[in-house]
């Protein structure tokens, strides 16, 4: 089942920025308090290869869902570029944009919130098929039963309403709805987080099988490290709107280069009762995205923080083969071997302006 991804990037994201204005209360407005801005994405860059599963992991507020919504243009990013199979996604208009939205489909965490409760499964699926004119006449009904078969739902599910299904079944309907328009990329935002563990496994197996069968590229966004590790070829770790580390799955889990990744792995409760620790994996809490720390966003919680971390924001740099991390700690070690600090700073400026 491990169809290795081909090397060519199908999606390329460069320096994506997104911020939200926080609504002010009348009181704030009258007292002249300034508008507050939540910085949700601060320069996110990555690539996804065709047929690959890229896992995106992070805690709440790290920007992973905002990223997903920017990728399908549910949000318009403030700055940056998204390229998909040669297209400049953020410039697409009209028909071309609809076509992009057909090819890149999103599956949401809560299928009950994303399915229309007044439409039967058949109506939901048929609407998607007809909108994109993928089938006509009687072929629509045939396609609906084909889709239900694909996600292993019985044929009589077609004429029932979303509320008649269990959580796992609804998530299958959500996947069928996404697949109805024959996409080549799925963005799964916390696909199984709301499900019980035994049902989670069913949906994960279905996703793996469908990816193989339909040659899908998958962005799997989740907070569960065990799931991410199981399903992803490569993993990006996000913290406060930035990717702090990006590597092939086993590299990331076995030799994390960023202190935040290390803390996250240590904090995840292990399934082995014989291996317990009594020391906190990381101190402190997530800073408010309204007031991001200067320098490295992780420095207030980082056990290795140095002066440089409090002033200068680290950028993603290669750490080895197909492994990048944004941390001064390793930069320092590398720099002392080859370059002076000044040269390095110049290089950093060059990189960040490029």
């Amino acid at each position: 089942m491990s169809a290795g991804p081909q090397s060519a990037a199908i999606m390329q994201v460069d320096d994506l920025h997104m911020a939200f204005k926080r609504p002010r209360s009348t009181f704030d407005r009258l007292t002249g308090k300034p508008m507050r801005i939540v910085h949700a994405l601060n320069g996110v860059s990555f690539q996804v290869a065709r047929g690959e599963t890229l896992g995106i992991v992070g805690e709440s507020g790290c920007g992973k869902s905002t990223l997903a919504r920017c990728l399908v243009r549910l949000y318009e990013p403030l700055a940056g570029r998204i390229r998909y199979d040669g297209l400049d996604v953020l410039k697409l208009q009209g028909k071309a944009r609809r076509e992009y939205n057909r090819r890149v489909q999103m599956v949401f965490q809560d299928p009950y919130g994303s399915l229309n409760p007044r439409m039967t499964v058949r109506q939901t699926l048929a609407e998607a098929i007809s909108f994109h004119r993928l089938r006509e006449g009687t072929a629509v009904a045939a396609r609906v039963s084909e889709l239900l078969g694909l996600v292993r739902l019985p044929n009589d599910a077609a004429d029932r309403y979303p509320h008649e299904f269990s959580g796992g079944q609804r998530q299958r309907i959500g996947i069928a709805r996404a697949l109805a328009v024959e996409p080549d990329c799925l963005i799964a935002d916390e696909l199984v987080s709301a499900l019980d563990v035994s049902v989670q496994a069913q949906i994960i197996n279905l996703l793996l099988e469908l990816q193989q069968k339909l040659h899908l590229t998958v962005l799997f966004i989740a907070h569960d490290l065990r799931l991410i590790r199981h399903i992803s070829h490569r993993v990006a770790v996000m913290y406060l709107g930035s990717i702090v580390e990006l590597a092939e799955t086993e590299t990331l889990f076995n030799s994390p280069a960023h202190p935040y990744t290390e803390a996250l792995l240590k904090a995840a409760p292990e399934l082995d009762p014989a291996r317990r620790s009594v020391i906190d994996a990381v101190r402190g809490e997530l800073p408010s995205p309204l007031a991001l720390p200067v320098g490295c966003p992780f420095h207030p919680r980082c056990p290795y923080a140095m002066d440089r971390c409090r002033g200068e924001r680290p950028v993603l740099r290669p750490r080895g083969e197909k492994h990048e991390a944004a941390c001064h700690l390793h930069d320092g070690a590398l720099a002392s071997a080859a370059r002076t600090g000044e040269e390095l700073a110049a290089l950093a400026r060059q990189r960040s302006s490029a």
Partner: protein
Amino acid sequence: MNGAPQMPEPLLSVRGLRVAFGTPRHELVAVDGVDFDVRRGEVLGLAGESGSGKSLTLRAILRLVKPPARISGQVLWRGRDVQRMTEPEVRGVRGGEIAIIFQEPMSALNPVLTVGAQILENLEEHTDLDAAARQARAIELLDLVGIPAAGSRIDDYPHQFSGGMRQRAMIAIALASNPKLLLADEPTTALDVTIQDQILKLILRLRRDLNMSMVLVTHDLGVIAQTCDRLAVMYAGRVVEAGPVADIFAQPRHAYTLGLLNSVPRGGALRQPLSSIAGQPPLLSDRLTGCAFAPRCPFVVPECGAGKPPLTSIAPMHDTACLQHRKVGQR
């Protein structure tokens, strides 16, 4: 902190606990004859999926389940049956000797009272301290649960706290009465993994320092593995397996426990199909005569449909309600 303490006398003893809804003719039984003991100083995990009755069991212990729900069975707390106590007697135990914390601190805390006021309230009800001593104790408690600058945060309202801090505040309120048993209902489920780690370790530290017993309800087997001494697995309102955590994780003896443990992805075998459990848990309205897990069970034999298998002892302190436990154990 490893291994259950060898105290023969249980602190809390639950026997035949049953919670039913609906009318007597169309009864929906959510908790169906649950038995377990909590010994002094131990952490008992109550695991199961949604709808298995684990939270309801916890609430029923303190009679927090209100009519029309009907509770029956025995809850022996230090020799006295909580179910037969008068309402004032229950109030003395609830929030006093037995404290409870919930999943959603925001809905469990009173939003219009300061955190300090909510701790003081509990101190006033359950301790003999005077006003000045109570104030000092409240600050001490906030400090104990790791809230920085406790003296200045005591007058904050719950909404001024982050999710992790709210859970810490709720623990501080629970500890105010010096409880001997702490019931925790999914205390870290709403929290991020790094904060979950901090809260779990805090709870374990407090358990050790204050010599408390605990019942921890969770759906997360990782949390069980990291914090509990013993484990009771629930399915469809019944305890299907109970025993020391290390034993059950090493060799589960109920088909459901085995399926549950196998459903969780572990390192290795990447991108391979996970062994999931087919089908769905039964609905409360499904009237099952035999083992509730039989329709989903890969080990099923005809006898499984003949009546609900009782929880029977198969090893010291290890019970299972599975007719096929030998076969399951060999897997």
